[in-house]
């Protein structure tokens, strides 16, 4: 029953996709455990995420997926009761011993399950992060806002109402606004937490296309409750279940190839419970 999550480098396949022979390690997680008080949210996770890959995380509710993301960008500091142990190296730096968590977070874009359009204009939503970085010039901000909205496939829909409230856009638009806001951070790493929960299928497909293009520039962690979404997008995928990382592998292998744990195959094929 005890599943051993080992650090595995998929031979050949991922390398062929990214066009690299030796993938650079973006994020190395060693023996990560997360507790809330006495409740264990995640236990003994070891994995590595390569530069410019889409790393999928699948698993049922309460498997520890969201907690995993929170540990990466050190949101545990702002979450009462959350205790994290283990190592998380980001770009070779140990984030657990980092004093400047703000700099870390500003390099990591996060997209939440429910879209969060901040109660300010569309323009201000996207300009917020650059402004936090100290960019004041209107011309510079204009360029950033247009570029990020365009890359998030939202520019055409909102270019005539940049001064409308971001929180009044439709759900699908707000989610793309959230992605534009994450991109305005010029992130090294983009973490999406079940982004399609409140989004219609057409918008979901548009966002998926956006993600495929973004792979050229950023590393992406895609937490999803849609197994097929992971299959469409992720180079490699981890399966979280009951606070443990059961399996890590090249995505296609989880569906058709060898799996270490039968529960993985049961889950991806929908025979679960």
């Amino acid at each position, binding site marked *: 029953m005890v599943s051993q999550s080992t650090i595995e480098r998929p031979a050949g396949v991922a390398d062929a996709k990214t066009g690299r022979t030796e993938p650079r390690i973006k994020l190395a997680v060693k023996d990560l455990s997360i507790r809330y008080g006495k409740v264990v949210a995640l236990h003994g996770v070891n994995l590595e995420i390569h530069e410019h890959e889409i790393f999928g995380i699948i698993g049922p509710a309460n498997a520890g997926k969201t907690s995993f993301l929170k540990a990466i960008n050190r949101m545990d500091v702002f979450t*009462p009761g959350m205790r994290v142990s283990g190592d998380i190296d980001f770009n070779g730096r140990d984030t657990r011993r980092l004093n400047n968590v703000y700099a870390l977070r500003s390099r990591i874009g996060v997209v939440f399950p429910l879209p969060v359009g901040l*109660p300010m204009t569309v323009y201000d939503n996207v300009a917020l992060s650059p402004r936090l970085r100290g960019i004041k010039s209107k011309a510079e901000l204009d360029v950033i806002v247009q570029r990020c909205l365009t890359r998030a496939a939202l520019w055409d829909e909102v270019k005539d109402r940049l001064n409308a409230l971001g929180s009044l856009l439709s759900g699908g638009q707000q989610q793309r606004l959230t992605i534009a806001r994450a991109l305005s951070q010029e992130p090294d790493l983009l973490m999406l937490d079940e982004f399609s929960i409140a989004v219609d299928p057409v918008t979901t497909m548009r966002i998926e296309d956006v993600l495929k293009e973004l792979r050229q520039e950023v590393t992406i962690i895609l937490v999803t409750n849609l197994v097929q979404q992971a299959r469409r997008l992720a180079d490699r995928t981890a399966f979280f279940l009951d606070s443990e990382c059961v399996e890590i592998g090249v995505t296609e292998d989880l569906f058709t190839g060898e799996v270490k744990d039968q529960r993985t195959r049961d889950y991806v094929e929908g025979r679960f419970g």
Partner: protein
Amino acid sequence: MTTANTAMFQASRLNQRNEKVQVLYRILFGIMTLMLITPVLLILGTLVVKGGGVISWEFLFTPPTDGMRTGGVLPALIGTIWLVMTALLLSVPIGIFAAIYLSEYAGDNWFTRTINLAIINLAGVPSIVHALFGLGAFVLFFGFGTSILAASLTLAVMTMPVVIVATRESLQAVPQAFREACWNMGATRWQTIRRVVLPNSVTGILTGVILEVSRTAGETAPIMFTGAVFFTPFLPQSVFDQTMALSLHLFVAATQVPGIAEDVPYGIALVLIGLVLTMNSASIAFRMWLRGKKKW
């Protein structure tokens, strides 16, 4: 087909009962609302009918004469403005900053809970107790004497819970998701407060300030030992002067001056209420302007 559809939309007995109950509750709530505004209308009506006659420019802008039986209310009017403004200046910044700390920074531990409990208790302390505290602390211990400063400090201590509670409530009405989105971008707590939380809670904070203005202007007990006097023909020149105040003047005119015309106390009360409404309407207008501007 037709009969089935007709039957489907026929009101069942349960439907009829639900409808009756719903009408009853609507009437009940309506009556309660009427009971709420009736005293307000009665008070205002009485004041206008009985005291409206004495209101004139002369009444507003001359000091009392003939042992306060005739003349106007100028020193009391100016004194109340001094007291309210000084008290606001002291309590609003402290109250708002403390509320921001309690809501945004302080963790949920026994210390914070004790502070919150203390604030609620402070709001429950009778004003005469505040008056004695002000006398002991500000007049005597700090040596401010009976002065506007001592009276305003007493009023500030007394009304600060209103500001703190109103501010805290409106800060906590801002959805947590907004804060987390901002934190996730690398914003500090203060950046988040300044750019996301405060802009969306200003209107609620202003409500607290409005409530405080009303209370401060009307209080009598806390100022009668600490800075307000029975009678002075002089206008205050600084916060270290004593002053007349409308609330105390009303009390004096209504109970301590034999032979005063009956409509004068009503007139004083009308001036006091008019002053409060004038001060409030400024912040209400500001609040409406802010509300029209944005909301999630």
